[in-house]
């Protein structure tokens, strides 16, 4: 049963990633029917205490992206309460199940946290406000139409009488929710739309124990884990004699895919883990390496009769008749998420048969389903405590491997809480990686240099096959592998996109802005075409975008803000790229310089984003800055190589993260045009790699067709 629930959830989520479709949930209204709800619970989202403190329940996870605060702002806006009295708590996954999934989706990915729940949470706020007005009107025995609510007070306008929300909440909670509510025009927002300080930051600067790894329970033990270094391998035998003799060690746990040591501190567990002599069965994957993976993808590019992710016009015919053909092949490596907090899960099989789990998860409901299934318990007998995430970036949503492991380990120590934390090496070598892929592009230009045809062949492992097999498209099309081409905004009369799904044995997953490598390919290639046509890259793109297209608006906005075409300091060069995705439209100009030894420096990034509406401008800017740094590492030096079936990199010495000295100036132009809701967690990473590489071409004359840059000689040709 748990699997059915989570699958359905995954399908709904996947349907919305990238497509910009909002998820619809029914208005919360069943709160009063739920036994044990607090007295001031007006609906599932809002509890108001007698002292006017407003607790807003948040169903999504907080991993630094600011969703917790933004959702609270939207609720508070419609509720019209005093922001200073707002507190938040995460909605309980266990209660979620017992209340017939009253909070809708708990999934936090695809930059959907705000955009897919904004309607529901705003309605929850508006509904509660009307109920508070109704309670006041009943108390005063006047018509509700004579009353209004603002800033935590209901006022009877004719007499000026006032009641605080805290005085009314218990009575309001007993009323039936209104059948219809009207939502405020965003132009009139007072709490939403403002750069309010994030609610989770004070605890984080104080070092309070808010993360999954910070869980501390009486009698708790600690676990460190070793998984088969070759993906898909199994445990054959482990000699644990030396480990078990070490100080503090309580138990060595053996499972098909891992061995774990449980001890009284994590360091002792991990030291003992190093003393294990493990014999793994690699099950035929021990020979895989970069070359076999490249050969697998190359075979895909050459394959006949591939499924088509897009067909417009007749690309082969138009190519045959084109004045000029431009061809190129691009590729990308596997990439780990490398969340700074390693994967972690604390599990406690209580003596009463109930299982409690604490974890850093992007989907509390999926964690609940995974824990229940692993434990063999009904969902109602499991609770998941959602902790703050030390980074997510897509690692902690679909895959719940760490939850299953944590529960499996604790199941052998019933009655005792056990906290599992992966070492950095495990985290580096057991990710769900951004797929490695290869793409072959053939464009046909007419005599004026205009694109008349684009034929794209993509060979790429399928994320959906690993994590959401039910949401693959027809003929096994994985939209995360073809996006950017299958939904290209440029007006090209003849387009064909072929997809070769070639999976290999390396697990792949949703790495920030899944499919973002296609933006690198497409927007770099468009620059190649502009060069071939002898046109300016901005003008060339504008000529292919329909009037009124939001891609066009953000491109014009970024060109203005960056001073496209204006003189640059000596040695500095520009590049441009656009991308739409995750509900938003993004355009970027990068400025780079390259030293005499070929050392590239990204100096300045100007990015324009149209997300329709902006709930917290400062946080949206922070997300753009974040995307730039996250993407920068993958441009400069990050890659995960495969040798002997395993990932080569082990830690931050060979999988580097940018430092403060490498941080470019980032200027963010928020350009919301209204009428739709786009995301902010991922869009700004999409145009980054091509904007930087197009600038590098301007600087060096070298066209970068694979990343990272550390593989390339960047001295000027």
């Amino acid at each position, binding site marked *: 049963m748990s699997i059915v629930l989570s699958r359905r959830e995954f399908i709904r989520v996947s349907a919305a990633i990238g497509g910009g479709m909002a998820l619809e949930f029914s208005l919360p209204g069943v709160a009063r029917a739920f036994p044990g709800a607090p007295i001031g619970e007006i609906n599932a989202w809002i509890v108001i205490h007698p002292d006017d403190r407003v607790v807003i329940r948040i169903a999504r996870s907080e991993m*630094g*992206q*600011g969703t917790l605060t933004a959702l609270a702002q939207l609720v508070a806006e419609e509720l019209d309460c005093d922001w200073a009295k707002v507190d938040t708590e995460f909605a309980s996954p266990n209660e979620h199940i017992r209340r017939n999934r009253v909070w809708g989706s708990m999934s936090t990915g695809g930059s959907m946290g705000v955009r897919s729940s904004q309607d529901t949470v705003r309605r929850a706020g508006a509904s509660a406000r009307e109920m508070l007005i109704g309670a006041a009107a009943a108390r005063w025995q006047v018509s509700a139409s004579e009353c209004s609510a603002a800033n935590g007070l209901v006022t009877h306008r004719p007499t000026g009488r006032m009641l605080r929300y805290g005085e009314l909440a218990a009575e309001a909670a007993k009323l039936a929710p209104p059948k219809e509510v009207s939502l405020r025009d965003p132009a009139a927002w007072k709490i939403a739309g403002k750069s309010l*300080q*994030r609610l*989770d*930051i*004070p605890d*984080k*600067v*104080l*070092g*309070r*124990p808010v*993360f999954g*790894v*910070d869980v*501390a329970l009486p009698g708790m033990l*600690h676990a460190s884990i070793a998984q088969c270094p070759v993906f898909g391998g199994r445990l054959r035998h482990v000699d644990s004699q030396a480990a078990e003799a070490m*100080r503090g060690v309580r138990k060595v746990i053996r499972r098909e895919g891992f061995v774990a040591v449980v001890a*009284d*501190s*994590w*360091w*002792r567990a991990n030291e003992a883990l190093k003393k294990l002599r493990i014999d793994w069965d690699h099950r035929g994957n021990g020979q895989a390496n970069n070359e076999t993976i490249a050969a697998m993808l190359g075979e895909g590019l050459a394959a006949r009769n591939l499924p088509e992710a897009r067909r417009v016009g007749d690309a082969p015919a138009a190519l045959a008749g084109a004045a000029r053909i431009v061809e190129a092949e691009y590729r990308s490596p596997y990439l780990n998420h*490398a*969340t*700074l*907090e*390693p994967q972690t899960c604390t599990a406690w099989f209580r003596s009463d048969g109930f299982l409690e789990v604490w974890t850093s998860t992007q989907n509390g409901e999926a964690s609940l389903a995974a824990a229940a299934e692993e434990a063999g318990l009904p969902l109602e007998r499991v609770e998941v405590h959602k902790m*703050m*995430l*030390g*980074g*997510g*970036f897509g690692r902690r949503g679909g895959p719940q491997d760490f939850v299953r492991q944590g529960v499996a380990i604790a199941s052998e120590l019933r009655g005792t809480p056990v906290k599992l*934390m992966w*070492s*950095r090496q495990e985290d580096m070598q057991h990710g769900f990686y951004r797929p490695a892929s290869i793409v072959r592009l053939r464009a046909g230009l007419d005599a004026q240099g205009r694109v008349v045809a684009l034929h794209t062949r993509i060979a790429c492992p399928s994320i959906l096959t690993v994590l959401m097999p039910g949401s693959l498209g027809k003929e096994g099309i994985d939209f995360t592998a073809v996006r950017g081409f299958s939904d290209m905004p440029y007006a090209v009369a003849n387009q064909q996109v072929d997809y070769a799904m070639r999976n290999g044995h390396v697990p792949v997953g949703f790495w920030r802005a899944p499919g973002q490598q296609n933006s690198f390919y497409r927007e770099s290639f468009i620059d190649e075409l502009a060069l071939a046509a002898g046109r300016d890259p901005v003008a060339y793109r504008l000529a292919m975008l329909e009037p009124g297209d939001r891609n066009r608006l953000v491109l014009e906005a970024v060109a203005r803000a960056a001073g496209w075409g204006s003189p640059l300091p000596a040695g500095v060069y520009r590049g441009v790229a656009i991308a739409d995705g995750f509900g938003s439209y993004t355009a970027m100009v990068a400025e780079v310089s390259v030293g005499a030894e070929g050392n590239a420096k990204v100096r300045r990034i100007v990015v324009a984003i149209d997300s329709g509406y902006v709930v917290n401008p*400062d*946080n949206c800017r*922070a997300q753009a*800055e*974040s*995307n*730039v*740094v*996250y993407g*920068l590492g993958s441009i400069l030096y990050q890659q995960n190589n495969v040798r002997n079936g395993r990932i080569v990199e082990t*830690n*931050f*010495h060979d999988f580097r*993260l*940018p*430092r*403060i*000295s490498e*941080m470019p*100036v*980032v200027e963010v132009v928020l350009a919301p045009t209204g009428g739709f809701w786009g995301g902010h967690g991922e869009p700004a990473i999409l145009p980054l790699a091509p904007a930087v590489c197009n600038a590098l071409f301007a600087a060096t004359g070298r066209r970068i067709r694979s990343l990272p840059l550390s593989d390339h000689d960047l001295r000027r040709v």
Partner: protein
Amino acid sequence: MLELIVNSRRHSVDVEPEMPLLWVLRDHLGFSGAKYGCGVGICGSCTVLVDGEAVRSCTMPVSAAIGRKVVTIEGLAENGLHRVQQAWIDHQVPQCGYCQTGMIIAAVALLAKVPRPSDEEIDRTMTNLCRCGTYARVRKAIHALAEAPPAAAGKVPEESR
């Protein structure tokens, strides 16, 4: 038993002398503000002050901290917020926040030595890694602290040194 001074208090712990200070703090003394990120002294999430110096506690054996003053994020201010913590709020620096306790400690140590650090000094000293990319705000917050002298900026004395 080993004697440690953490956040101005004496603690006795029964641990191996080679156990890194980080794990003594986190698992034996309950100071979970310092974080594990890499275990090899690269990322700086585990940064604490030892006699006023910013130290990667994941690679310092606890024996090396005996008799020295260890200050963690929990002990930075006796009450309320240290001025660096306040600046981190004012400039909305953290995102996920995992690296930020180490980042704040590193900034405290830097400002104690160099009250008005240049960009180059910040680049050289602030070697902590942040996966979310908060660097622009870290720099801004440090410069803002340099502009405001400690006495005027907050009520909290620099007792953390």
